[in-house]
């Protein structure tokens, strides 16, 4: 009996601590994800411990590998700065891809075809500009432009098929993913293959959206131009959805398309526009991936970041700033894992398991928010009653 009471009290203090930490609604959009990431790492720690390795060391190595903490030694021309810059380079396509997913979600659409749109955009930019002799001043903007156009057109087409023929965007996106993957593989293998790397031939540096091997203070850095653009566009997008008329219309169609139609919004046009926008961001993800982080295209492979973006978009609560944060965290895990696996001797797959777990927990964040709210209400009510008595 008394034990039970004890338990209850213990439970209560635990509850109170959690409430204290997560209860403030103003900060919940930050505190809850951080809490969940923390939980994921605890779960991962248990796995690592059970393999007989030191989890803290492993996580430390993870951060070192990602360029967040300094490594004990660096290779020639490398430092924490170069590692950090390559982290940013790596996360650029992820930000764009997640934003693409988020835009569609806001408009009530599910863009599962981000990978296909990325591939298409990357392909056209590669063959049209990547192999040309254009000066960088012209080449780089053109690469972006082609990414925007290719992604936008394909996204728009998916929207159009939905609007005109009621073809579910999930189905058409999946079909396009396959078609693009195979058709482009044909063209790459037929015309653009590099027999050594077995991928498309490397593009010229002038067209690359990442400045590679920039020599500075005896370091060779990879500076991602795309990253800067991604951050700027994320900010623009946030304002767009908060303040702009079109953003309002997209959200209205997403929340209730009948209501939006009644309000005089052209639902079909808005839907297509949403997909065009989403496609544009996919296209940007594509060019920063294939002509930024990489410099060639692996045939018949869809970039997995197009799918990861779905989860990242959610982890970031479809909020552009949240997405930047979520991409940052997932990228750290991805990028740091090679070094972690090398230094701590834990398998690299642990990293994907951690990522999976973060995503898993974050899928429950709405529930946690709801529980906290309920808990708070009942506590407030109890307090109110005690005061009455």
């Amino acid at each position: 009996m008394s034990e039970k009471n004890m338990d209850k009290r213990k439970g209560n203090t635990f509850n109170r601590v959690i409430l204290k930490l997560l209860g403030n609604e103003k900060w919940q959009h930050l505190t809850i994800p951080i809490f969940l990431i923390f939980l994921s790492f605890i779960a991962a720690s248990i796995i690592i411990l059970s393999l007989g390795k030191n989890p803290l060391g492993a996580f430390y190595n993870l951060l070192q590998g990602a360029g967040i903490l300094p490594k004990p030694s660096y290779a020639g021309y490398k430092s924490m700065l170069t590692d950090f810059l390559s982290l940013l380079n790596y996360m650029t396509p992820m930000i764009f891809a997640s934003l693409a997913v988020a835009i569609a979600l806001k408009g009530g659409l599910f863009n599962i075809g981000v990978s296909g749109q990325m591939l298409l955009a990357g392909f056209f930019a590669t063959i049209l500009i990547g192999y040309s002799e254009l000066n960088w001043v012209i080449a780089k903007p053109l690469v972006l432009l082609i990414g925007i156009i290719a992604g936008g057109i394909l996204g728009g087409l998916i929207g159009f098929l939905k609007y005109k023929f009621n073809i579910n965007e999930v189905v058409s996106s999946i079909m396009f993913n396959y078609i693009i993957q195979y058709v482009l593989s044909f063209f790459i293998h037929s015309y653009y293959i590099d027999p050594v790397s077995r991928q498309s031939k490397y593009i010229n540096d002038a067209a690359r959206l990442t400045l590679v091997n920039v020599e500075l203070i005896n370091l060779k850095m990879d500076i991602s131009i795309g990253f800067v653009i991604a951050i700027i566009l994320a900010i623009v997008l946030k304002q767009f959805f908060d303040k702009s008329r079109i953003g309002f219309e997209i959200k209205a169609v997403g929340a209730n398309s009948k209501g939006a139609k009644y309000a005089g919004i052209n639902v079909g046009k808005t839907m297509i526009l949403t997909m065009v926008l989403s496609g544009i961001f996919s296209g940007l993800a594509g060019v920063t991936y294939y002509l930024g982080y990489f410099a060639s295209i692996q045939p018949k492979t869809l970039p997995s970041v197009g799918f990861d973006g779905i989860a990242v978009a959610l982890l970031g609560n479809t909020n552009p700033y949240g997405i930047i944060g979520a991409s940052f965290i997932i990228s750290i895990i991805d990028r740091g894992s090679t070094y972690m696996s090398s230094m701590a001797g834990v398998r690299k797959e642990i990293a994907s398991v951690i990522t999976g777990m973060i995503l898993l927990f974050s899928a429950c964040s709405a529930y946690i928010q709801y529980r906290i709210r309920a808990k708070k209400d009942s506590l407030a009510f109890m307090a109110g009653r005690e005061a009455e008595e």
Partner: protein
Amino acid sequence: MYEYIVEMRNITKRFPGIVANDNITIQIKKGEIYAILGENGAGKSTLMSILFGMYEPDEGEIWIRGERVKILSPNHAAKLNIGMVHQHFKLVHNYTVTENIILGMEPIRKLGGLIPYVDIKGANKNIAELSKKYGLQVDPTQKIEDMNVSLQQRVEILKMLYREAEILIFDEPTALLTPQETDYLLDIIEELRKGGKTIILISHKLEEIKRVADRCAILRKGKLIDVLDVKETSTKTMANLMVGREVSLEIEKKPAKFGPVVLEVDNLRVKNQEKVEVVKNVSFKIHKGEVFAIAGVAGNGQVEIADAIAGLTEIDGGSIKLNGVDISKYSIRERTIEGISYIPEDRQSYGLILDFSLGENLALKDYYKEPFCHKGVLNKDAINEYGNKLIEKYDIRSSLGVNTQVRQMSGGNQQKAIVAREIELDSPLMIFVQPTRGLDIGAIENIRKMIIEERDKGKAILLVSLELDEIMSIADTIGIIFNGEIQKIAPAEELTTKEVGEYMMGVTA
């Protein structure tokens, strides 16, 4: 033996930010018809949901047939022989009547004595019999999506009877019915009582309560105000008790002064999704300063006419002229700009965006105009300021003002928000479909007054209503529709309620 078949003692139920039921005690005798009356959001549905096991009360006890019970789920309630017809029907739209009724209590037979299956055929027969016994006239094999609301409601009633419910709860059963259907339903209710059932009836309509109920509990803002003996109380007293002030439904109406024609509908034809012509060569005119009402039984094409004028439905033929301009090819937005306000029938899916804030919803029709939007950028402050103005003017109640998510608001207040927005558009033509549906009398009074005010300001008003009183009390001209065709158009004073009713049934056609 027990004195009361149902006793709810000291029930309290809180929702975040509101006490929906505050220490309410009601006692219901076996075989009586017990009415519950109250303003929108007074807590009627909540109280009954508790009795039906959908919510757990925070405090209080429930006694059924003299025994203390905890009703944990609707299933549990059903076992106690309690049945409920909800305000929003709980029907599976692509199932047949039978499938809906047997759901949860499926009769099972075995194929070859081994493989179980649901015996639909047998159930069809049973339900046909049941329906006949209570005179409900329902075809068990018809699909719900093909039925009108009145029929759907009878399915809900059959559902309870099939479950052998003894205590039947009706939550605003007549809100969607025509007068004839209402009469029919009330007959059924009396029939059921004769059969020994106990009935709890939530309604905003005092005449109905007066007609069938024995006693009536009055709720206001979550509290029980009084329980009255209906036979000895006037409707007026009931109304006043409920709202907490004097109300009158007699609208003072100055004689109409018609101006030039505002809306001219000529030979309008509309087909529905199944390509069936539901509006057939309809023509009429509405002038400045005129309330033109379309009377008709639900599902006879009146909503399609309204949708067609507002641009929500494509037309199949004919023309629609607004102030002499043919707008039949215009987009919805262009029509709004040209001068149409529209209160749609289905306010939750069309009238509002439930996940948006009240402020945003109040600006839903002009968010893109100055001062709400400047060069494509929205001005939140202007939108909120406007919202606050409307909230004040139309007495829209909500917990967080302009920032309330509309989904959280009570149905009546959602309706008020739509009315406010559409009237404030100040359009020359205002289309009101069922503008007072589900509202309490106080709110009804206000809205009808506003409609008349708008008329007097020189607006042309198209009113579509299923409620004959409403039509009789505010219309200047009445058009009666049956089966997609206008049967008769005449000044309101020249028609009696009875005549209109007959035209509505197509009797005099």
